[in-house]
């Protein structure tokens, strides 16, 4: 965190007006909750919720060399993307460590939109720019400051969009992005999210942010919409075991250790970090990111709580919370691979006392 004044999203005034509790989040000041984390969490699981994600970074790569160049920068294979589709992927350093996790969309035959973590946007941009050499016809732009964005998540998202755009307008398919117009506002709608529910992430000009947000809240009333903060975003994503960069992902760990090898295409001849990942895939990794659930009643686990097994500390939690859906403590931790099997009984140390927990299959929450 820097000493500079916190950055405000174009929706800051709306959050304050709605009585949100605002907290520092990296360089930003963001809403952590409005009506309450439990209430907002349930709104997303049962109806629909809307989150400000304007702090997320948006980078655009253009040009004839952009696809080939991105394929050397990112782990997944952008050549597999047709226009209008996107994929989850990683930006790695030479040691295979994770700089960022992001979604890349192919928005035109020779144009890509990268939606990156707020805390890494500047770092990603600087890293990518440094690696532009040799791809002179590729162009990279950081358009983060000019755009706002919201995530709209929950089982009633389709109903809501029919109310917003008309019954004849279909949302793009899962992991696809499409342009649309609403009341004169240009929207880019990506069918994705960070909650485990059906949902979209919508991007628009920063000038349209308040208008779009308020229209969504008004039209969403009939579907039980709630504005949701970072608190519910964290409980929702952790129930799904979606990693949070800076907590579950870091330059000290690679995607294989994080259990996210699915988003790495080792068949590509070259990309930054490839050699380390090939090695990791062949000989296995010493650590593995596991999900765990507390047994019985007890205090919820938190990041950095020590993890024990048979009287030995074997790791520490990277994430932890009370799961509102399961009403139980849940978390994730990197554990030595020999202790990472589902069903392994572990203990979480909380204020000097050890509480029993068990390594579970991901995701921790499944819709019944």
């Amino acid at each position, binding site marked *: 965190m820097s000493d500079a004044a916190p950055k405000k999203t174009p929706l800051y005034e709306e959050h304050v007006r709605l009585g949100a509790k605002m907290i520092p989040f990296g360089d930003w000041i963001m809403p*952590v909750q409005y009506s*309450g984390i439990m209430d907002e969490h349930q709104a997303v699981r049962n109806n629909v919720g809307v989150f400000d994600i304007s702090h997320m970074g948006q980078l655009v790569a253009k040009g004839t060399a952009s696809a080939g160049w991105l394929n050397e920068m990112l782990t997944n294979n952008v050549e597999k993307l047709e226009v209008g589709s996107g994929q989850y992927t990683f930006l790695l350093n030479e040691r295979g460590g994770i700089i960022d996790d992001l979604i890349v969309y192919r928005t035109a035959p020779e144009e890509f939109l990268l939606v990156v973590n707020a805390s890494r946007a500047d770092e990603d941009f600087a890293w990518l720019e440094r690696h532009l050499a040799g791809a002179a016809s590729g162009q990279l732009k950081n358009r983060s400051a000019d755009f706002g964005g919201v995530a709209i998540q929950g089982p009633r998202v389709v109903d809501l969009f029919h109310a917003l755009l008309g019954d004849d307008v279909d949302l793009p398919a899962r992991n696809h992005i499409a342009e649309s117009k609403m009341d004169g506002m240009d929207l880019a709608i990506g069918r994705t999210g960070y909650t485990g529910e059906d949902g979209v992430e919508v991007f628009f000009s920063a000038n349209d942010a308040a208008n779009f947000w308020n229209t969504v809240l008004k039209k969403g009333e009939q579907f039980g919409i709630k504005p949701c903060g970072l*608190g519910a975003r*964290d409980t929702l994503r952790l129930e799904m075991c979606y990693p949070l960069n800076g907590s579950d992902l870091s330059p000290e760990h690679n995607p294989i250790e994080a259990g996210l090898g699915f988003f790495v295409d080792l068949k590509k001849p070259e990309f930054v970090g490839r050699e380390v990942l090939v090695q990791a895939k062949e000989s296995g990794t010493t650590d593995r990111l596991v999900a765990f659930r507390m047994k019985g009643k007890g*205090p*919820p686990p938190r990041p950095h709580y020590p993890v024990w097994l048979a009287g030995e500390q074997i790791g520490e939690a990277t994430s932890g919370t009370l799961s509102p859906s399961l009403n139980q403590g849940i978390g994730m931790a990197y554990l030595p691979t020999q202790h990472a099997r589902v069903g392994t009984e572990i203990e979480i140390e909380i*204020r000097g006392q050890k509480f029993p927990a068990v390594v579970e299959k991901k995701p921790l929450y499944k819709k019944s």
Partner: protein
Amino acid sequence: MNVPDDLLYTESHEWIKREGENIRVGITDHAQAELTDVVYVELPKVGAKAEARGQIAVVESVKAASDIYAPVKGTVVEANAALEGNPALINTDPFGEGWIFVLKVDSPDDVKQLKDAAAYRAQIG
């Protein structure tokens, strides 16, 4: 925010109700609203010695764990077991069913140092 006139208060948002030589302690309406959904309470053990402003209990919301402090020096004589099954009582009835512990006070004069309702109201604005 509700700040009952017949209670005393601490800087750290505990309320205190005098009951003979004992005090009953919980957290204020303001504190529960700031903490939001309480999901776990770590109660003090009966018989535990408490130092003035020493950490004695923990109240956890979804987002964070917060320490609760003993307002004065004393001995814990009761803890609210109902909070183990229903920690949300702290949100729904902070001054009633949501009490956390009862302390037998070492020196009754210590209680006189605590804030009255007007002073606490001024503190929370």
